[in-house]
């Protein structure tokens, strides 16, 4: 690494490196401009609406996610759903669970609710924490930077999945939603802070920042009106790409039996319950698996597209 001296001419990449300023509306237009990203965004909007209006949606179908429906099961087949494809019918849109006959559509909708709630809360916390600490480390430097950077190294060197498991299994009685949000945030913020720190360091050395400092702006002012606006694009991209990671981890932990536990509906936990039925009733794992995969994929596609729009260098290579 070479450190540019104060008199060095601006590097040729500077213009491209500085994120383009884009309004929310033009970003949205950009996302919809690619059919893949438009499809992904459409899917996410549908799932989000289902999640928000879960009680209303399940009232329409007439099935809640908890009650058992023995009528939909075939006792002669050891409690497998009646009918083809895991009991898909006009009454149960996505079939029912074997053995207890709970409505899968209702559980998917409520599962989306938990999944989004946990992932979005963890994203909000990690973005705020990561941006704040990353900016402090990058802008203040010195000892503060050393302390924050070491803390990040420490957390990044942790085997986070195993540690989350240890933490949650040591505290089985704590509210699982809360616990998941806490562990996801605890191990998630360094990934955001690391990028923000690097960008802050390079922004702090730019002419416009130096000009602001030279003209007597306070440190707070420089941080909030010179550096933060230039980080906005990066933050949006990091946040969009963090969500699928958290959704996947929550589902994985629930699959392992240490996230949300039955009867609370969760996609990961549904797939785990389906393991013992997978040879006889494959729809039981295919439905939650497909919803989970499509949700993660859609967030990734939208995130990639946003990255391309905000920082054209990243994907246009």
């Amino acid at each position: 690494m070479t450190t540019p001296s104060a008199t060095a001419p601006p590097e040729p990449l500077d213009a491209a490196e500085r994120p383009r300023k884009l309004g929310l509306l033009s970003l949205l237009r950009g996302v919809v401009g690619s059919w893949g990203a438009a499809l992904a965004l459409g899917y996410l909007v549908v799932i989000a609406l289902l999640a928000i209006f879960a009680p209303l949606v399940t009232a329409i179908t007439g099935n809640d996610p908890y009650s058992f429906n023995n009528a939909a099961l075939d006792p002669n087949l050891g409690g497998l759903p009646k009918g083809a494809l895991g009991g898909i019918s006009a009454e149960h849109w996505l079939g029912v669970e074997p053995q207890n006959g709970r409505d899968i559509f209702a559980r998917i909708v409520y599962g989306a609710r938990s999944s989004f709630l946990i992932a979005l809360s963890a994203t909000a916390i990690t973005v705020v924490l990561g941006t704040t600490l990353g900016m402090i480390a990058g802008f203040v430097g010195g000892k503060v930077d050393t302390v924050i950077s070491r803390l990040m190294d420490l957390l990044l060197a942790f085997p986070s999945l195993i540690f989350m498991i240890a933490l949650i299994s040591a505290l089985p009685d704590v509210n699982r939603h809360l616990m998941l949000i806490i562990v996801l945030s605890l191990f998630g913020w360094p990934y955001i802070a690391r990028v923000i720190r690097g960008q802050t360091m390079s922004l702090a050395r730019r002419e416009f920042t130096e000009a602001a400092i030279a003209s007597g702006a306070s440190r707070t002012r420089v941080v909030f009106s010179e550096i933060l606006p230039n980080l906005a694009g990066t933050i949006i991209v990091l946040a969009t790409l963090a969500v699928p990671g958290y959704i996947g981890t929550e589902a994985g932990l629930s699959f392992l039996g240490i996230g949300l536990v039955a009867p609370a509906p969760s996609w990961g936990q549904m797939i785990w319950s389906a393991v013992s039925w997978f040879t006889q009733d494959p729809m039981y794992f295919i439905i939650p698996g497909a919803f989970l995969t499509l949700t993660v994929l859609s967030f990734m596609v939208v995130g990639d597209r946003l990255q391309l729009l905000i920082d054209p260098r990243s994907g246009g290579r």
Partner: protein
Amino acid sequence: MIWFLLRRLGFALFTLLVVVLLTYWIFFALSPDPAAQICGQNCTPDRIAQIRTTLELDRPFFPRFFEFAGGIFAGRTIGSGPTAVYCSAPCLGYSFQSGQNVTDMIVSRLPVTLSLAIGSLVLWVIAGTIGGVISAVFRGSWWDKAAMTAALAGIALPNYFVALLLQYVIVVKLQWLPFPLNDPSISDPQSWFFSYLLPWIVLALMYSATFARLTRANMVDTLGENYIRTARAKGLPERLVIGKHALRPALTPLVTIVGLDFAMLLGGALITESVFGLQGVGKLARDAIGTNDQPVIMGVTLLAATAVVLMNIVVDLLYAVLDPRVRVAAR
């Protein structure tokens, strides 16, 4: 270089110590009482007190912690009087459930996990490199688009879902493979190979997808360098331009990724082993979670942390060997 290495080792030891301390603290201070759990339903307060003494749950935190940490390096004697047992280093204590030595339990499960991990490592590096390099060289081609779409899907698919899907399609429906065995033995190479094939593919899928994306990005960057243009300008055949000039600088940074991903593999193995019922360390941890067998969970956590921390150092050293510029900077 020595100084650099010592500093890295120091930080590694510090990280491990923090992991041990935190895990121990979580289980000691926060966890519900394992004595009540072991004792079961018809339990008397006397019996609980007795179990607490046997498990040494009634002693204060720090003496217990230092004994535990010391036991990892030097071994220790557990209990006192006629019931005392010597537990040789690295001592991780005894399972609350089965009373077995935790170190022995982990060691006996390691071959399965290592077979799983190494096999999928081979698969993922080969698939990831080939996929990424071809995509970069023929950028914009149908291969590039197909490979990168597949990679995106590979990252998005949760590995337990892929595991069930592959098992259902290949084993149940098409019957191309027999049902994977829980405890495959190498003495029957054919069934060993077929039992591990699906777990390898499942575990490799996600990693090779990330790897292919990174390989492609690095390769595209490298192919844009001036010296590649020079190599082409002086008339080198494309095969040599790519093979001799572009591959090494493009792949060197990926050594870090492979190393760290490999160290993190235990997390993925936990899920893969659970789905396929493989009796590895991951399955051990999952079962221990189910029964709140704290010494076992702690042992596996430590193993995972040690793997990550050691791999960090190995990767740094390897990187210094492969990339001369790092050697200079480290001095």
